[in-house]
């Protein structure tokens, strides 16, 4: 069965979704990602949806779930590259994906992840109690 590849880029994981996923494939991705995060101790997950022409409520929920579960595993998720038509439709559908951070593209997404990880580090090292 086809799987969506998860690439490792340093402390980050990169997923590029290019196919129109059926529901089971989406669930598999969710599982695979959470496994990989805990296996690798990744601090950030980038999900590139710039090729996705349809994001319905199921996929939207999947993205939200991935963001929540990653956070529990101490990783940040950023969804990048949402197409305008998809964004407009999601808003009309009523999904605002609160809790999911977004960026225009992979570069912007990486920057966002690095900044938030650095901010966390600063917090840890600056706090009086070590």
């Amino acid at each position: 069965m086809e799987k969506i590849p998860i690439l490792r880029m340093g402390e980050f994981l990169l997923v590029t979704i290019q196919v129109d996923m059926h529901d089971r494939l989406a669930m598999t991705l969710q599982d695979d990602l959470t496994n990989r995060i805990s296996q690798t101790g990744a601090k950030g997950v980038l999900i590139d949806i710039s090729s996705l022409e349809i994001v319905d409520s199921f996929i939207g929920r999947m993205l939200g779930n991935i963001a929540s579960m990653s956070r529990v595993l101490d990783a940040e998720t950023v969804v990048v590259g949402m197409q305008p038509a998809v964004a407009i439709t999601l808003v009309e559908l009523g999904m605002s994906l609160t809790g999911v951070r977004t960026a225009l593209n992979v570069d912007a997404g990486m920057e966002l992840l690095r900044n938030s990880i650095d901010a966390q580090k600063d917090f840890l090292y600056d706090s009086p109690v070590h």
Partner: protein
Amino acid sequence: MTVLSTETLPVVSESDIVNVRRSVRESAARLGFSLVDQTKVVTAASELARNTLIHGKGGQMELITLNGPRTGLRLSFQDRGPGIADIQLALRDGFTTGSGLGLGLGGAKRLVNEFEINSRVGEGTTITVTRWK
């Protein structure tokens, strides 16, 4: 209203939902819908097909292209499932909180121009939506 073509697709498995998306996309593109409108109608179809599969226990979708005087796409989702007891409740948004509940009908309704639902408990549900070009 002139019917250009009618196609019936089964909605009994997950891969059928993907087929539904593809067929609706092709028809909408062929009719010359704008990209945004294509996306809206395909997304609505995806929601309703999933609804037919999961809550309706499987059924079918009729894909009708209309061309006179207006150009449009009409989708009719039919199942012989348990039916919806409280349609008003079903139309209210239950999934935006991400809880996974709710039938997604309210959202789909906003993506189309016309929305008609007929459901009887124990007999089944038919949802017909139309998107005009």
